[in-house]
């Protein structure tokens, strides 16, 4: 689990490195152009452009490697990270050699590679990369000094060439080498600490999830037991109310009807609680392809009766390109019914409810709007919380479970979708659902 999260982070950072390299390619190209054409420095164009081209080409290779390879083992990711940084160092050393060697102030750009290595690699590998950087730098400096490699002087930038001045070479090399190692030391210290903290947080999260599971199992257990007893109570009361056991006097009938009514409400509540707990515990439901249009129609017909009672018009528009989507038909229908029933409940007589479903390529967007009582602005962020009921909703209906929207949210999230609401008190609400196809 931890190493997975760590690995995912590493892959993400590798992509980031590739992105940075595109910038480096552009930066290097512009710098060389400016220095050669603008400042008229006598630098060899051909090798410089070839190096930049090489940088460009291997970045493309890494870009596709990262996309194509689906199964990325930690060792593979590490190898890729190490090779990228080594190649970058090589390129930088080559660029430096062809543009002034030790006299080129860009030698300090080696620091960036050290910081990147410290973020991506282990401490040991970061120091090894630093050593490789120092080796490349020393090779350039020594071979130019010995005359094995030609030296390209940045005349105009410096007064006289320094590549054979031992004191200058010694001084710059000392600062350069110490800077590199100190940079790696500092950066790895920070990134190690961050990694440790990340690990601790991940563990804490895991513990929280485990605790939440235990709590949910407890709730499931308790509500299941309550439901069993409630079912028996309802089962015994109903034949009496239905007068199967004989006639009742009006007072008896009234009291028993009240008891049946309250038991029914409690049953509804316990069932909602059971359902949300089950969904939370399962995190997985049976997915299949089903017709979204047909499901929406069923959901609409489920609330049509109630809407007609209040003379509310229901209007739905479904883009014809929307056909089947993948998910749990039963749960999606329940969510739509739930939202529509809410709209009907909280919209006054003669109101309007509209359902618009748009095709967004690999996703669909559902918007259920009404011109009902709306939700107070301050309460909007809490509306999907379990047991939360908006203050004005309580005025319309005293007993609600406060679970309907949180069940809807759980269902949509299991489908890897999103649900959100826009609302203005007194004007109406729009619930949006985004679902993958």
């Amino acid at each position: 689990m931890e190493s997975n999260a760590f690995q995912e982070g590493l892959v993400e950072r590798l992509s980031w490195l590739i992105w940075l390299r595109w910038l480096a390619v552009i930066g290097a190209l512009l710098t060389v152009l400016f220095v050669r054409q603008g400042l008229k420095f006598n630098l060899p164009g051909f090798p410089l452009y070839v190096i930049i081209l090489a940088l460009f080409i291997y970045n493309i290779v890494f870009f596709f490697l990262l996309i194509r390879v689906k199964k990325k083992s930690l060792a593979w990711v590490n190898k890729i990270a190490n090779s990228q940084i080594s190649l970058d160092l090589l390129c930088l050393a080559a660029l430096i050699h062809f543009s002034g060697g030790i006299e080129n102030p860009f030698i300090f750009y080696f620091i960036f590679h050290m910081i990147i290595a410290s973020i991506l690699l282990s401490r040991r590998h970061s120091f090894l990369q630093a050593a490789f950087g120092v080796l490349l730098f020393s090779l350039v400096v020594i071979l130019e000094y010995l005359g094995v490699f030609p030296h390209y002087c940045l005349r105009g930038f410096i007064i006289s060439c320094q590549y054979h001045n031992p004191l200058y070479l010694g001084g710059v090399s000392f600062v350069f080498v110490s800077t590199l190692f100190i940079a790696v030391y500092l950066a790895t210290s920070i990134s190690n600490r961050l990694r440790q903290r990340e690990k601790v947080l991940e563990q804490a999260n895991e513990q929280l999830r485990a605790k939440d599971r235990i709590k949910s199992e407890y709730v499931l257990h308790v509500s299941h037991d309550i439901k069993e007893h409630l079912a028996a109570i309802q089962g015994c009361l109903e034949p009496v109310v239905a007068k199967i056991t004989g006639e009742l006097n009006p007072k008896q009938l009234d009291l028993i009807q009240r008891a049946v009514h309250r038991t029914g409400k409690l049953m509804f509540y316990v069932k909602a609680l059971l359902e949300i707990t089950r969904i939370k515990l399962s995190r997985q439901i049976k997915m299949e392809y089903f017709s979204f249009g047909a499901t929406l129609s069923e959901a609409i017909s489920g609330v049509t009766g109630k809407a007609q009672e209040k003379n509310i018009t229901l209007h739905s528009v479904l883009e014809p390109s929307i056909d089947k989507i993948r998910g749990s038909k039963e749960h999606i229908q329940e969510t739509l019914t739930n939202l529509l029933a809410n709209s009907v409940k909280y919209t006054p007589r003669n109101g309007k409810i509209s359902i618009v479903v748009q095709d967004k390529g690999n996703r669909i967007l559902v918007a259920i709007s009404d011109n009902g009582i709306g939700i107070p602005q301050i309460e909007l962020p809490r509306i999907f919380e379990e047991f939360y009921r908006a203050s004005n909703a309580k005025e319309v209906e005293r007993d609600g479970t406060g679970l309907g929207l949180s069940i809807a949210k759980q269902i949509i999230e299991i489908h890897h979708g999103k649900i959100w609401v826009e609302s203005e008190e007194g004007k109406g609400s729009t619930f949006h659902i985004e679902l993958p196809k």
Partner: protein
Amino acid sequence: METQRKVLIIDDDPDIVEAMKVVLESKKYQVVVAKNGEEGLKQVKLAKPDLVILDVMMETSDKGFDVARQIKSDKNSKEIPIIMLTAIKEKTGLDFKNEAGDEVWLPVDDYCDKPLNPEQLILKVELFLKDK
């Protein structure tokens, strides 16, 4: 004279059983009761009911499914309709040993969530017994 239809209720909750018994007897059904799955299987053979109303959680949390399978796999009893007392959602929600939704695995004729109100109970029972 029309023979009295026989309904077997297999459920370990005596209160639920009593309530259903009162309702069914008011419609002149003969009611036989078994208070667990094993006893239920014996009663299927002995009493030869026209219909079985079957609870799920009895001796074990999925005993009802076992009982249903056994009734349906016996050639003497496989024609007897079974109404299972569980919500269809619970079928998938609870941690049963097998994957739900399989007709072979769950050979029942109808599901009902507990409690069944009197009208629904009578309606369902009549639906299964009217052709017999």
